[in-house]
Every structure is written in structure tokens, then in C-alpha cells.
């Protein structure tokens, strides 16, 4: 993916891509797989090396975060609205956070990216084209790391930590008799779709069933070469062999 920055599809008409000299790294994976914990650790690791870092999280835009929360509380969401709410949130973060940060040479760590929206829409519609067209204005990341897990391990982990909720269990799809059955079917289909996209979009796969420090080590190994390809602005090179220990034992969603 080295070389010019590009849009996923029909892009923004008024933006010069060559100005975006930072790095865009997306961490993907289904609910409860430990993305946020690892992103926190990656940020720390990068900042110690002297890189400017911002993180951006799914549904966390100023414009939309409240709207999406409210919408998910009522039973008023259809497939298109749900996907378009995600797209609006993403567009707001792209234009107000991601693009300005890339322009200033930051490393942007994205907790989930457009592939999450793809997976969720495909599971609900069985159709891939529309949602990909909708996100045509998205920038193609420099690197996508996919935290891969099997659904049985995931179910145990989620029960142990935050518990299963309505949307993470895909209850709007009426897939199973109860939360647990539905969770396994829904997350199973999401993982299946992520696996398909791994081929298609060239995700770097990281085994999320491993202990946290091993996962972190693998993520760093994938990210490192991407940073070297641009300007080096390290203040003091830190030895890679000393991973930052997580303060929490088990990664939470």
C-alpha cells in the first residue's frame, strides 16, 4: 500500500491527497476483542518514540455520537439508517480529525474503520455494493490490522468482562432465541465477513486469542515498517523488546 494516498471510491472533491503526509493505521476486529486496550498501548509506544499520535473511535464524532446512542435505544433503526448514521459519524471524524491530523504529519490510530460498517451492513442485507459506495469518500488506510478471534473464545471473554448487549448480539436481526444464541450467530457472521475482507483488502491478521503482550508485540511488528517508509522523526530510539505491560489484565471491549 506504499505510494500515493487514495480514496476508497468517489472521493472528496476539494481535498489534496498529496498533503496528507501522516500515517493512517486502522485496528479492526469484532466487539470485545480488545481493540481499545491495544490502541492505548500503541499510542504510548509511538509517543515514546516521538511520533505525534491521535486516536479516533467509531461513533465518537462530536456531531453524531449522541444521535447514534439515542437511535440505538429506540427500536427505530432500519438497515439503511444505521449504516448512514455510521457514515455520517465517520465523515465528521474524517474531515474534522483524521484529515487535519494527517496533514500535520500525525500517526492516526483508528479504533475500527469502514470495514466494521461493511461487515455489519452485509450481515443485515446480504449485499456488498451499496455500503462500499457509501463509504467511497473514505481514505484507504496505510495499514489495517485485524484482531482475529473465534466466536467461542469471544463469547467467553465478553461474558467475563462487559457482558452481552442488544446490539453486539445483533438482536435486531432475530437470529436466535436469546442473547447468547443470537450473539454467537451474529458475531459468527461478522467474523466470517471480516475473514472474507482480509483476502480482499489485504488486512494484516493478528491472532487475538494470544496473551495481550504477545498481541501487542505482533501489532508493533506490523506497524514498524510502515513508519520507517516516511520521514524519521524519532527522538530516541526505544528498544522494541520491552513491551509496555498492560495495567488491566484482560482487554475490555
Amino acid at each position, binding site marked *: 500500500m506504499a505510494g500515493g494516498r487514495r480514496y476508497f*471510491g*468517489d*472521493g*472528496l*472533491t*476539494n481535498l489534496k491527497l498529496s498533503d496528507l503526509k501522516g500515517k493512517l493505521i486502522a485496528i479492526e476486529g469484532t466487539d470485545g476483542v480488545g481493540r481499545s486496550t491495544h490502541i492505548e498501548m500503541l499510542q504510548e509506544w509511538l509517543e515514546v518514540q516521538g511520533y505525534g499520535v491521535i486516536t479516533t473511535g467509531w461513533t465518537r464524532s*462530536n*456531531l*453524531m455520537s*449522541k*444521535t447514534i446512542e439515542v*437511535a440505538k435505544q429506540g427500536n*427505530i*433503526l*432500519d*438497515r*439503511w*439508517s444505521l449504516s*448512514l*448514521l455510521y*457514515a*455520517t459519524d465517520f*465523515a*465528521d471524524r*474524517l*474531515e*474534522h480529525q483524521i484529515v487535519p491530523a494527517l496533514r500535520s504529519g500525525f500517526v492516526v490510530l483508528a479504533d475500527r474503520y469502514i470495514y466494521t460498517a461493511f461487515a455489519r451492513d452485509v450481515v*443485515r*442485507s*446480504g*449485499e456488498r455494493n*451499496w455500503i462500499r*459506495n*457509501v463509504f*467511497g*469518500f473514505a481514505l484507504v488506510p496505510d495499514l489495517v490490522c485485524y484482531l482475529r478471534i473465534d466466536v467461542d473464545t469471544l463469547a467467553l471473554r465478553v461474558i467475563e468482562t462487559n457482558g452481552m448487549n442488544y446490539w453486539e448480539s445483533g438482536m435486531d436481526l432475530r437470529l436466535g432465541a436469546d442473547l447468547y444464541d443470537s450473539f454467537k450467530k451474529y458475531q459468527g457472521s461478522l467474523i466470517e465477513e471480516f475473514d472474507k475482507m482480509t483476502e480482499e483488502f489485504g488486512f494484516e491478521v493478528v491472532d487475538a486469542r494470544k496473551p495481550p503482550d504477545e498481541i501487542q508485540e505482533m501489532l508493533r511488528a506490523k506497524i514498524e515498517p510502515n513508519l520507517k517508509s516516511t520521514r524519521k522523526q524519532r527522538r530516541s530510539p526505544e528498544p522494541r523488546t520491552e513491551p509496555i505491560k498492560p495495567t488491566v489484565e484482560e482487554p475490555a471491549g
Partner: protein
Amino acid sequence: MTSSVVTLGQPHPYPGKLIIVEGIDGSGKSTQLLLLQKWLESKGFKCFFTEWNSSELVRETTRRGKKTKALTPTTFSLLHATDFASRLYHNILPPLKAGMLVLADRYVYTAFARDAARGVSPSWVRKVYNFAVRPDMAFYFKVPIEVATDRLLGGTRAQLKYYEAGMDMNLSQDVTESFRIFQSRILDEYDKIVSEYGLITMDATQEIEDQQNEMRRLVSQALEQYRPTRGTYGRRTALFWRRFDEPKAE
């Protein structure tokens, strides 16, 4: 879940009929649609009315975004698409599937025209709205920019709104001038859309009555084969009356 086969590109398979009006602010399209509804209802048809940007789901967000001027052309476009999706799912598809008449004040073509005038990629907007149902009849009320501006400034809506006037695009410091430039761009876009999607062009400089007679003539032709399905209750729901009493945005 709706079948994904239905797209804007081809006629819908439902027994109901969808009639929509388009045009810039001040073209008089809302007046014409209201008169059409009165006539249809007097003939015993049950009509469902829906207007642009009115779903509960995003109304508050759009208002907040407009107030803080935080909207970019892309988020502006996507919010309206979300609004449309929600109305399509909840207000348009059910009556269409049930075999009723749906009247829409503005449809996806509004987004095609406005968003392109704001500099959003025209092909992208069309792809975003591809899940829309193709209308059975689409009227475009064509009016020169001077006439529209005079109607708006001379009428009760003397205040031009920030986004309506395209003030977010820095076209001009003067609101009226900005409105003129922005709406002219929209007119240009509408011209392209009319030929692309085969909208019926109405001369909106004519007398209200004449336009309405022409519209009724065309609609009755189109409805010749249409067999309305009606519920047990022939009367209009109170909700529709209340809607018309409120001052409406065009």
C-alpha cells in the same frame, strides 16, 4: 427487511403510487402538491404525505449541526440521506406496499441537485441514494431565479436561512446574493437531472390554477389503471390536517 432488488433505476413492484414534486425554494411546488392532495382526497383516494428532512431520527442533529455551523458538504449530504432512509422505511414503503398513494414534497433529486451544487461528487450521491424507490410521477417546477427570489423576499419568509442561501460556501458576504448564486447552481443541476431521470417539467411562472389543472390532468391519466386499496376508514387521519395548518418550509 426490504428486498435489495428495488433501486432508483427501475420501476418499483408495489401496488401503490408515488408522486413527488421538485423545484428550488420559491418555485411553488409545495402549494401545488397540497392542491393536488385536496383534489385526490375529494376523489376518495387516501394519500400519505411526506416531506424532506422531517424524520425524528436526525432532525435534532441536523438542527444542532446547522446551528453550530459544523456541517461539511459531506456530512450535510449524509444526514439528509439518513433522514430519507428513515422516512422511506417508515413512511413511504408501508403505504406503497399496501397499495396507497404517497405524495412527497422533495425527493432524492433534491439531494442530487443541492449536494452537487455544494461540490459533492454527483456520482457518489447517486450511489448513496440507490436504495430509493423510483417515483411513478416526478414533477419539476421550473422557475427563473429572479422570480423565486422575489417570491421568497416578498412573502412571509423574508429571512433567508444560512444553509438555504449556501452561506457555508463563502459565495458572497451578502445573504441575498449568496442565495442567488447558490440557487442558480441548483437550477443548473436540476436541468441535468430532468433529462437524466425524465422528470415532468412544469412552467412554475404560470398562474397557480393553470399549473394545478395541468398537474391534475397528467395525474388522472397516470392513475387510470390504478385500483386504490382502502381501509375501513374512509376519513383522513387528524394528523394530516394538523400538518397543513402549520407554516411549512418549502
